[in-house]
Structure formats: C-alpha cells, structure tokens
C-alpha cells in the first residue's frame, strides 16, 4: 500500500470515531460537553471543522457550540505542541515560586502562555491546581509530573524532551 492509502485509512478511522462520538451522545440530555471532551481527545484540540460537523449532526447552532467551547478553559481551539507543558499555578505552588518558574520557561522557549513553539515541539499553559501540592512547585509535561522544581532545573527538564 502506498503512503496515500495509509493516510486515507487514518482519516477514515478518525471519521468513524467522530461519528461514533456524536451518535452516542446526540440524543442524550446535556450531551454537548461530553462530545467536546471526546472530540478534543481525538484530535488533541477542537478544530473549526469539528464545530461545523457537530452542529450539523446534532442540530445545535454553531454559535451555541462555540459559546460553550470557549467558556471552558479545558477546551483548546489551537493545536497543542508535541509536548504540552502545564505549569501549576495553584496557591501552594505559587507561594513556592511557580510564577518565576513560568517566567523562566517563557524566556527559555520564547513563547507566551497559550502558544506553541514554531517547530510544534512545546506548547505552554498555566493550569489550576494539579493536586500534587506535596511536591510544589510542580510542572507537567504531557503526563509526566516534575515536582520540587528549582529555577535552575528548568532548562535541564526541558532538554530531556527530544
């Protein structure tokens, strides 16, 4: 099979999963938020085209879907980097210097919160309490948690990711 065939298979599979999500929830009460959760899990973010499709399949106005998606900070309308850095800005982390850690990462990567590096490698977000207050200050890179972080450790942690 040539590479185009492979890509087409992937798109077909994504489409099938997408349809599965919408058909599972479209008739259930309050199904829109579960749909957005699952679609974001599928694509890593919520692309514009997904809004249009959800709107058509579930018969919900586009404006309403957009309104809900932008209300909640968990939903992202921009693609994420290969490595998603979340800096915990809970109070326990903040009093232990999370603000300075965030500044340092911003400087190191030269991006702002909510953005992605040009090469698509890292994206940066400041998140609410991760609940690992015993390890404050904490950052999470994808699912990997780095705790008890000192300012001087920042570049070393980032360098671990290829």
């Amino acid at each position, binding site marked *: 099979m040539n590479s185009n065939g492979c890509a087409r298979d992937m798109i077909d599979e994504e489409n099938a999963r997408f349809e599965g999500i919408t058909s599972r929830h479209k008739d259930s*009460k*309050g*199904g*829109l*938020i*579960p749909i*957005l*959760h699952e679609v974001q899990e599928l694509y890593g973010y919520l692309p514009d085209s997904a809004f249009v499709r959800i709107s058509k399949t579930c018969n919900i106005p586009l404006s309403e879907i957009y*309104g*809900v998606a932008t*209300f*909640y*900070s*968990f*939903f992202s309308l921009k693609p994420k980097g290969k490595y998603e850095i979340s800096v915990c*800005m*809970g*109070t*326990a*982390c*903040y*009093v*232990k210097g999370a603000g*300075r850690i965030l*500044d*340092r990462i911003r*400087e190191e990567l030269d991006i702002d919160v909510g953005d992605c590096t040009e090469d698509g490698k890292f994206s940066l977000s400041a*998140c*609410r*309490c*991760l*609940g*690992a*207050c*015993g*390890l*404050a200050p*904490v950052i999470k890179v994808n699912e990997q*948690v780095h*705790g008890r972080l*000192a*300012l*001087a450790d920042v570049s070393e942690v980032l360098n671990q990711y290829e």
Partner: protein
Amino acid sequence: MKTNAQIEEIRRDTFSELIIRKGRKADAETPVKHVMVCAGTGCTSSNSEEIISRLRVQIEKHGLGETVKVVQTGCLGLCAKGPIVIVHPDDCMYTMVTPEDVSEIVESHLVGGTPVTRLSEGDSQVVKDFFNKQMRVALRNCGLIDPENIDEYIAFDGYKALAAVLSEMSPSDVIQTVKTSGLRGRGGAGFSTGTKWEFASKNEAERKYVCCNADEGDPGAFMDRSILEGDPHSVIEAMAIAGYAIGSNQGYIYVRAEYPIAVHRLKIAISQARNYGLLGRNILDSGFDFDVDIRLGAGAFVCGEETALMASIEGKRGEPRVRPPFPAEKGLWQEPTILNNVETLANVAPILLNGAEWFADLGTLKSKGTKVFAIGGKIANTGLVEIPMGTTLREIVYEIGGGIPGGKAFKAAQTGGPSGGCIPAKHIDAPIDYESLIELGSMMGSGGLIVMDEDTCMVDIAKFFLEFTVDESCGKCTPCRVGTRMMYDILDKITQGNGTEKDLDELERYARVITKTSLCALGQTAPNPVLSTLKYFREEYIAHIKEKRCPAGVCKQLIVYAIDPEKCTGCGLCKKNCAFGAISGEKKAPHAIDPEKCVKCGMCLTKCKFGAVTTK
C-alpha cells in the same frame, strides 16, 4: 445482583482477610502480609506505580505470591513524605520510598522478617505527630482499602448504612437523623445538609436529582480528589441514601476532568456497584431504584456554584442564575435537585451507622464533626489532614504540620481559597470552625489551608487571588466582571510601586460594591483576600506605596539584586550566566551588579553557590 445476605457474607469473609490491617496480628501458621502502597496523585507523581510493579515482580520471584498481597490504596495524607509504603500486620511505615528501595524491602523485610529501619525510622516522629491529633471519619477508608475493589469497601461496613436505611428507615427518618447530627455542607457555605434534603423531599415533583459537586476548584485544595481516589464507594453509597431520602432515582457526579485517576476509579466503582445491584433497579430488593452518572467538568471555577454547575451538566455555558428559585425547588432541568459536596457525602454513612448523637458530640457547638484540610505552602508536612472541628490553627501548623521549614516565622494562613482570607499570627490560637473563621474575616471554604512565612508578600498574594477571580469570572454580571478587574489593576499598580494611599480607599469602596451587588458567591466573596490582607497587613501595602519597598522581597519592580562582597568568592559563575551582561568583576574578587542593566531575572540568585546574591 446480590441479596443482602450475600453482601453480609462478602463482608464477613473479606473482613477476616483484612483484619490484619486493623492492627490484629496474623497467626503464625499463615504469615500473611499486606503491602499497602499509596497511589494517590501525589505519590503517583513521585513514581509509586513503578514501586507497585517492582514489588509484584520481586514478590513473585521470591515465591511469596501466596502470602504477600500488594495493595494500591488512596491517599494517606502525608504527601510530603511520599511515596509511602505500609506493611501490615507489622504496622511498619516506609517513607520517601524509591523504586530502587524495593528489592531491599522485599529481601530484608518480606523474606527475612527484618524491617528496613533506614526507611522507617528517619521519619517515625513526624509520622506519629502527623496522625496523632487526627480523627478520620470522611477519610476513614483512605489508605486502608483498595479503592478499586468493592469487597474491601464492604468489609469495613460499606453499604451497611444503605441496607439499613432501605429496610428499616423511612425517608423522613433519614432526613431527621442527618438534621440532628448537625452535618453542614463541607463545600464552603456550611448550610445544614439535612435541611437541604428536607426542602427537596417536600417537593412533590415526579423527577428529582441528587448531584455531587466534585468540581474542586480552589487552587491548593485536594480533599475531594483524595476521597474519590481513595474511597469512591463512600460517595456513591451516600448519594443513594440521599436519593432515597428526597425521592430521587438519578444522581450525577460532576467531577473535574483534570482528575483522571479520580474519574477512572469512580467509573470502576459505579460499574461494580451496578454489578452487585447496589445501584440500578430494585436495590437490595427494596423496590427503590437509583443510578449514578458521571459528568466531566471542563475547567471553570464558577461551576462550583450550584446553579452554574447544573447549567454545565445540562451542556450549557456554566453561568449562574439568580436564586430563588433555589435548586431544591427548580434545579437540574427545572426539577428539584440537591447538590452536596464530596466530603459532606463521605460523612453520611457513618452518621447513619453510628447515630446522629455520635456525630453531634464531635466538634464545637455549631460546627459538628470533623473537617478535612489540604495543608500546603510553607509547611514541613504538606498533605491531607482530618481534624475535629475546633482544633486550633497552632495545632495544625506546629503539631500536625511540623512547623515552617528553614526556621522561618509563621506569617499567616490562608483558608477558603479565592473566596476566603488570611489568618495572621496573632490569631494562631483561634479554633477552626465555621463561625470563628467568618469572625476573623476568612471562611472555612472547602478546606484549602495555605501556610505563608516571612518571605510571602501579602499584597502579591491578594493580587494572585484577584488575578484568579478576574480570569474565572464568568462575565455575566458587571460588578464581578468589571469590578474585580478594577481591583486587580489597583493591586498591580501598587506592586509596581506606583500606588497612592487613596488607592487603598478605592479598593475598599470597590470591595463593598462588588460584595453587595454580584450575582453569585464567586463575585460576592472575590474581594475577601484583599479585605483581609488590608485588615491585618495594611503596613505592607503602605510600605509598597510610601517607601516603594516590598518587605518580603517578592514584587519584582521593587526589589534590587545585589552581591554581598563579604560572601562573594569571585568564582564568576553569576557573571557567566547573566544573559544581560549586568555583572562585572575580576576573577577571585567580589563581583557587582549594574542595576541599570539588570532585568531581575533571578538567574544569578539560583546559580550562586555561596548565598552572596541578595534581594532587597
């Protein structure tokens, strides 16, 4: 589907197997051991999963598979010393265990019978102090059972209260018991739980709902997460009891999507309860139907407010609405609904099993029972504690919490998160209960307790909380949307050194308006962190304004980096690392920082090995 008799049998059998966890010695014939490894979020983040898998491999390797059982438990509370491993029945607690320690634990302790004192003795006093003053009601099973195994929950009287309620009590008996116990909502406001149930029960609508608020939004609080991770069935059982009391057949748990372990364990717990017929149709052959579904939150703090939470379950933007009508009258999908917090629900089964009087005897005159706190910030033993209401802040900070690290002085404790306030050192002997915290200008909140020392700037903390509320304000009402931003701008101005004394009057004026006119509790309480820091630490605001000085050395614009020539060895490390060429000096001679070039990035401070870089 199981009958009540079958559930009783499971309880007896599993309990006799688990009794060694309650300090009972196993008999010499069968040297059974249970190795409990904390798999809460904190310990998982420090690699407890790897510890569990290595333990299992090593135990098999030594042929101990029949007698030694490895159990992953919920949070034990002492997160600062995690990962934690406990061996029963030897009552031996290992702290700060690494995967590399596993083979020694297996070979020396489990095979050889000699505990590894290197891992148990260093912190033994800390462990003793930490647990000594605690009383575990809501956290009764956290760390004691495997949260993914319903039989272990049943073994320690799980679902016994539900069975008793369904067979022996009328809905109004249940409500009366909860009312008499004095249980009040643990989510913040402290409303009587029994009274809330009574309102909903009196409504004769055909459909009613029971909702559980597990959208723990207070930054720095993780009580509810720990209960869901360590003992999810306690919440499910209580929801079924609440359903019976008010006449509802459907419950929803609204839980943060940011808590993947809690969501995973809840899903397992719900499906196990359904399999046993403890959820679903005709529970324990009583004719009562009840089921529970999970709804994921999506990162909006305002959804902790009850009407906003219900809008979110309905699939809408989580915006609050005017009350009345209260949810007990018109809630989810316009039907009568009760909303209880996770910790509140975790108290319900023990109250019904032990009686209202037992619970009412705990705590203070108006605040009954215990309260779980997540203690964090500048404190030695960060973690989760459950104490009887009325315990003093001093006991929490210095006895249970082990004091402030580095010999620093206690400055204040913040309770109630962005809706609460701080309690300064002069009130450290105040008892912790609903009323006395309100009197001090703070509030109980959901249970976050952040300790601050002399290096914490109170103006900066007030700004931190305001930034949070500005960000999380849903925007529906003007006082909250615009007012909190106006307060934030003033605080920002002050921390930049551009504030005036008139600004403090303005802050207080805005606070009054926002408190009085906001639509929901998010806005009404948003000014509290500013008001309480102004009340107790006004001199710090004045120092920022008049002297252009941040006494704690935090506010970036007001601090100056300098090198102490006495301590500087002239190693040149700071100069090499300064990206802005602000540091000069000859090798082996004291260096100096040019304040004109310095951008206050703090790199020199982190690089200096001699503590020669100072901020003032």
